């Protein structure tokens, strides 16, 4: 079973994302900010990371840059999931190493198609 780390400071978003991703067949773990996410990735690199942008301690953008520089950090598919919807920010996220990008609000269909576009099948 493929693993997905859900990174968001909102407990509600983590819960909603977890339910959708579990329905899609992923084993889900969670982190509340970028720093926690990097610690989880160091311990066990997931197959996918669903990453919020604006979080306390360490932002999603910075976390993705650092993840991509880690040993094995090029492997996970990274899907941003954020309220940021400005094209310049989306370009920044792609430049940092994101494979796909979800603009909140989202639903299960959007999540499913974005993970497929990112080349990931559970």
């Amino acid at each position, binding site marked *: 079973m493929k693993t997905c780390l859900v990174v968001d400071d909102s407990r509600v978003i983590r819960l909603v994302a977890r339910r959708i991703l579990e329905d899609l067949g992923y084993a889900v773990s969670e982190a509340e900010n970028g720093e926690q996410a990097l610690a989880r990735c160091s311990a066990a690199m997931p197959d996918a990371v669903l990453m919020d942008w604006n979080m306390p301690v360490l932002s999603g953008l910075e976390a993705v840059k650092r993840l991509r520089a880690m040993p094995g950090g090029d492997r996970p598919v990274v899907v941003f999931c954020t309220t940021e919807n400005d*094209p310049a920010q989306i370009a920044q996220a792609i430049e940092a190493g994101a494979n*796909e*990008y979800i603009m909140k609000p989202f639903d299960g269909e959007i999540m499913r*198609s*974005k993970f497929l576009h990112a080349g990931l099948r559970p």
Partner: protein
Amino acid sequence: MSPADAAVVGTRVGMTDEDFRMLAGLLRERVGLVLGVDKTRLVESRLVPLARRQGLEGLGDLFRALRQRREDRLVNDVAEAVAPTDSAFFRDPEVWEALRTKVLPDLLVARAGTKRLRFWSAGCAAGQEPYSLAMLLAEAGQALAGWRAEIVATDLCRDVLEKARSGLYSQFEVQRGLPIRALMRHFVKVGEMWQVASALRGMVRFERVNLVDDPARLGAFDAVLCRNVLGAFDPQLRDAVLERLARLLPADGYLVLGAGEAAGTRFRSVDGAPGVFAPA
């Protein structure tokens, strides 16, 4: 009786079984749409606002007007209100993959002499299908340099055609089926909406066409996309439409249907290309 029950009874008072049968018969005859009884609530919910726009009291008045006047304009308005219009970009990814890897390469070889391609998106709804095709052609890059590609996109509904022409989609709509890189490459953000870039919009010509009518005036096409449209049609009419589509396609042209849709006897399926058919 709960308020919810009262609401249900309230709307049912507006549309009797006889009304539904009359409406279903009229739509089948004029635009080929088959209305299943499972669509009763949907039809009611879409016709109430239409009745208001027509200055009528409610569904009862709308059905009286339909019976008495049977005007094309009113029947069209009703058909437009109840026709299925939902869609997504690159719906059925496997069919789009077949278009990219089979249909387009074949046509590039077959039309190398004229360097001209004509596509018809029949039943294009709000435009996601023709714009997906325009994106696919744009992504072909150098392979299509010096070529003239035209996409004719048609639908019965004026409202969705207007939306399609604008090329404006909500954030929710552009996330249905569209990879983020395609969104960044082919759309511009306009306020809270996303608009198809003008170069792509220029590739598509939108027209109102009723598939019940003979489409010969549109001319011949190299490929016709008629996806997830014919399923809502009366079987006899579906065969008639397929027959007419076959006449618009050359022997080396293609018909593209939705995943899992059948094309009848005038076409044969193309091996390894889901949803793709060639004239038999």
